[in-house]
Each structure stands twice: as C-alpha cells, then as structure tokens.
C-alpha cells in the first residue's frame, strides 16, 4: 500500500513541477524602448543548513533564491513590469531585482506601489550618478626628466608636502577600492598597482576610461619610476571596480547607476577594501546608503565627492559617515566637509597619457590616498565608524582644508620623522 502511495505521490509531484516549470519567471510583457527601471529588494533568509544528498554544498541557498525569483516574477506580472535581472546582496540579507517599467509609466510611482507589497522590503527607482570631474585634455608625456617628471606640477607636492609624507608612509598594502569607470591597468604609472579588477557594467570591455584612470593615478600612481606623477599612496593596492561608463559624446561624461554601484560596493566590502573612493554624485539612495552603512560599521573609510549643485552636496557625500571632499571652498559647508587639491591636477589618462584634471572627484581621490597613508601597518587600524573622519586634521579653524602632515603625524604618533607644518596651520580635529 505504502509503495503505491509513494509511486502516486512521485508521479503527482513530477506532474506539478513540470506544469509549473513553464510559468516560472515568465516575462509578463515586453518593455518599451524607453522603459525605466525599478529596483525591488526582497529579504533573503540567513544561510542555513538543509539536509539531503547534496549536503556538501547544501548551504548555497539556491532553493531560497528560487523562491525569491518566483516572488519577483509574480510582482512583475502584477505590476505590468518586465523582470530584467537580479543580484544577491548577502551583506544586506537581500536580493535585488531589476524590473523595467513600460513607456509612460513613472519608475518612482511604480517603486512606491511595489513598496506597499508585504513581501517587498522596499523598492526604489534606478538612480543615475555622475563623475564629479573633468579632463582638461592636454596630454603631457614628452618631458623625460628623472623620477616622476610631473611631480613638481602636482598641487600636493607643495600643499601637502607629499615627499615628506612618503618618508612616513606610502600606504603600503592598504587596499583602496576605486568605484569608478574603467582603470587602465597597463598605464606606465599604474602597472602593478591594481590588485583586483572587476567590471559591473554590461557591454564590451574597455581598456581604460578617463575618469577612473585619473582617480586611480592620483591615489596610487607609482612613485620614483621615472615617468608621470607620484600617487598620494603609491604603496596602496588598488581594487579597480568598474561601476561607471564613459559616454561617447563630447565632452565625455561618466555615468553610473544604482545597481552597478551597489554591485561594486558589495564587492569592495566583501573583499575587505579599507578605503572606498566614490568620486561621483547623485540623488540619495536607500540601497547604496545601506551598503555604505555596512562599510562604515566594518571600519572602512568611505570618501565621496561634493557637488555644490546638488542638495547637501549630493549623495554619497551627504550620507552620514562619508568623508565629503570638495575641490573649492564651500560657504557654510559645515564641519563634515573637507577641501583638498582638485584644480589643474596632473594625473594618468588612458593610452598611457597624463593630463590635467579638475573637480571634486579628484579632490576626493587625494583624501582617499591620504587615508590610505594613515592606515599603513603601524598606523591607525580599521576601527569604529567615526575613525575614518577622526584622522583628518583641518589646516585652519573654520576652513575645510586638510593639513595632511598633521593628519599623518597625529595618527603615527611620535616617530623619527617630521614634516614642516605651515606657519598658519591650526590643527583642529574634524568631526
């Protein structure tokens, strides 16, 4: 009797599963050409044991993901959206689903409707972010004096006394994540500096893009190699994470979206970056904010570029805990805003070139490099949420300029090293 029941159940289950196979994840309708995208975040259960024959790999939660895919497909059908892709975010305990709204539908309204569903943690429209810098377009690779011929032209050479800083620290083995457009790994000033490179942008691979290559050079270009510039932290190891892309039209813009940035941030945190550079700005975003909070809670320093045209300097600079950096003084900028060199800065560019760049993006890159110097072994260890901000010392009261030397000395403590402090400097701990 039991045998017959068992056989009948096996047959019934097989039929049910076969019938359901055709309807799972079916796209409800085609999206219009200008479909806008919505992110839908579904809770992922903590990973746990599931006994069974495949016990050796029974913790990957493939079954749980299948359940969430089915829920996402149901939501997409119910809201007339097209399920585009998904991405797990285990650091947040969430799975992120991207859905496209048809032409004429507002992504913001769709996100608000989806957020009311009890099975949805929250939903938000896909935001677009922009790199906060411009390339002057004047390549300069003709000069061939000995070591780092463009060093004297670097604003930090004088303003931060970079050579003196390097006597104390080069940021040796500190991992700095550059979440940006493609970094040219083969650039003569960046060869060997990129430890990890990943792309989170769809489409064909590119060798290098302006913004990302420029930011990477400021942070960690090789020093004393006889070409180009010296990075602020030439001993740092770069994690080059392509989350942005360069537009074709002139002048080229650097754009990113919520999903590509979230993927890159997740990767950086998961792979233990110690500093994350975000030289970009856009609207506040819940998903990115959550990931930044995770990074800060783990002692990662997150540096953002300040955009004076966006409310509060734009996101992520406006996010609590992020070190916001501007290239120019900001009136009423408040104590959480720092200023660093970001005008007429020579840095690396694709094609093995160097060029002058301008913007808060590059000011932020300088600060990321400086924080890497403070985190070299023997300096400040990654710690609490506020420590990244605590290491920076303002050059004068009421101003946002950073006294890099005082910052480093403050972290390293008494040592057989020194760098002259500007006479007018008045160290004030920020934050």
């Amino acid at each position, binding site marked *: 009797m039991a045998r017959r*029941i068992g056989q009948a159940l096996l047959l019934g289950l097989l039929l049910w599963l076969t019938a359901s196979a055709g309807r799972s994840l079916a796209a409800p309708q085609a999206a219009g050409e200008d479909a806008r995208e919505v992110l839908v975040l579904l809770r992922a259960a903590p990973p746990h044991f599931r006994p069974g024959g495949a016990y050796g*790999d029974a913790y990957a939660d493939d079954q749980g993901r299948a359940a969430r895919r089915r829920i996402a497909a149901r939501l997409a059908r119910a809201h007339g959206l097209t399920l585009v892709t998904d991405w797990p975010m285990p650091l947040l305990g969430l799975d992120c689903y991207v859905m496209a709204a048809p032409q004429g539908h507002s992504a913001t309204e769709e996100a608000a409707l989806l957020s009311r569903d009890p099975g949805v943690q929250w939903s938000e429209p896909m935001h677009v972010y922009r790199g906060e810098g411009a390339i002057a377009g004047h390549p300069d690779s003709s000069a061939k004096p000995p070591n780092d011929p463009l060093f004297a032209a670097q604003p930090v050479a004088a303003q931060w006394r970079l050579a003196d800083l390097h006597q104390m620290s080069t940021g040796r083995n500190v991992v700095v994540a550059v979440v940006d457009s493609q970094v040219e790994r083969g650039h003569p000033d960046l060869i060997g500096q990129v430890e990890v490179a990943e792309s989170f942008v769809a489409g064909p691979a590119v060798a290098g893009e302006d913004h990302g290559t420029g930011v990477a050079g400021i942070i960690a270009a090789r020093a004393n190699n006889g070409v180009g510039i010296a990075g602020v932290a030439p001993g740092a190891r770069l994690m080059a994470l392509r989350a942005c892309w360069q537009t074709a039209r002139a002048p080229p813009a650097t754009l990113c979206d919520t999903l590509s940035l979230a993927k890159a941030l997740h990767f950086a945190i998961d792979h233990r970056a110690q500093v994350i550079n975000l030289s970009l700005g856009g609207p506040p975003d819940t998903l990115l904010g959550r990931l930044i909070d995770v990074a800060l809670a783990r002692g990662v320093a997150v540096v953002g570029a300040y955009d004076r045209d966006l409310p509060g300097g734009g996101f992520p600079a406006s996010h609590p805990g992020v070190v916001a950096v501007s290239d120019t003084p900001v009136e009423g900028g408040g104590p959480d805003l720092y200023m660093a060199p970001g005008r007429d800065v020579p840095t690396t560019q694709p094609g093995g070139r160097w060029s002058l760049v301008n913007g808060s993006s590059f000011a932020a890159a300088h600060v990321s490099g400086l924080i890497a110097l403070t985190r070299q072994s023997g300096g400040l260890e990654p710690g609490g949420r506020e420590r990244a901000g605590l290491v920076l010392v303002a050059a004068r009261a009421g101003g946002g300029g950073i006294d890099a030397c005082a910052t480093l000395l403050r972290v390293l403590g008494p040592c057989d090293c020194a760098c002259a402090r500007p006479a007018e400097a008045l160290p004030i701990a920020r934050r």
Partner: protein
Amino acid sequence: MTAPAPDPRRRFQSPAASRAALLLLATLSVAPAAPAQVAASATVTTNYLYRGASLSNGEPSVDFALAYDDKSGFYAGGAIIGEVTRREGAEVLGHLEYLGYAYRLKDGSTLDLGANNLNYRSYGYRYAGDADATEVYAGWVRGSLNYYLHYSPNYFQPGARVLYGEVNGAIRLPSPFRLFGHVGVLTPLGGGYDSKERYDLRAGVEVGFGRGQAQLAWTTAQPTQTYYDGPAQGRGVLALGLTWFF
C-alpha cells in the same frame, strides 16, 4: 561470523513516509498563493550519497524537496527521495524533514540551530526495517565557509549515539561555475555496534544554468563500512546530479 545476505526486496515500510509525503504535497499545492518564501526543487542524481555512504545502493535517485523560510528566521523543509532500480522501477527510498532557526549576527555571519529527521529504506545487512536517524545541530555560517556539529541519539541504528562535525566551503569561479568541498568526522559516543571514528570527504564543481544546476562530486569515506550498515563503499565515488528549482 558471516553477515546474512541483504534482502534486495526489502520494502520501505514506514507509514510516516506517506504522511510526510502527503504533507509536502499539500504544502506545495498552496505554496504559489502564499506570500511566504517557499521553494521547490527536483534533483536527479546517479547515486544518493549521504556522508560518504550510498543510501541508494549505488542506484540513481530522484528527490523532490520543499523549503520554507519565515521572516523571523525560522525555517523548515522536507524531501521525498525516490530511486530507480533495474528490477523494481521507481520506488520510494525515504523522506527527510527539518526545522530550524537561523539568526544573522551584526558581522554578517549566521548562527543556525535546528533538528532533522531522516527515514530511509535500508539496504543494510544487520538490521531489518528502516534506516532512521534524528539529529539536532548547531552551526556557524560565515561567508563561503560553514561549520556544523550534529548529535544523533539513533544514528541509523537504535541507540547509536554519534557526534558529527563538518566543515563546508565553496569558491565562486567565473560564472556559472562554483567549486565546493566538504570534510566531515563522525565520532561514536556509544550504543552502536561500531566504535570507530569515520571521516568523509566530498569535493566537486557546480554549474548553474537557467533555473537549474549540475553538480559533479567525488566522495570518499574511511573506513568504508558505515553506521548505515549498507554495502561497503569503494575508495571514491563520482556522482552527477541535476537540480531544477521551481
């Protein structure tokens, strides 16, 4: 002393199997309408291996699994395992059920506590009837590694108390590949016919495709005789599994 020959026609007798199967089927039938996270999967494998022992006598098997995850962290699930033999065709090999609670810590790792019940048809030599085991377990999952300790008061033999510790890990390769590995050590605490410690290893590669995945794994165990009391295993078994998620 010579062990009696196994009875290949011994049948799975547990009425609990039928009840569990009916419960699973009933849950499946309402699952698509419920807001909870319920998943179903079907797996076909060339050999149903459990901690280094073949529970399907080296024959192919198919299992249908159901998993439920609650928002609170509680989870439950079960599976019905069938086998396909040359002589008998499709048969029910057994069923399993589990219930647990997983708690995510601030550092992102997870503490996991639970219990499971295993009921299999026995191919064993010494004990007639089913091969059953009930266990409680505790584990810690951090990233791609997890560590578990299981205690059973009746590990495939009445009164056989054992501890089983295991470490599992996975390495993500370029999509869609993943490598995984497992090492487990079973320590007898008394009550069984065997007092030998036993280890098992498993390593393999997994390939994802669409809504499914393929898994090729190599498994070995020492000593080859098992608590399960089935036929001794060879030094290594290669098994292929295909899973579809629904």
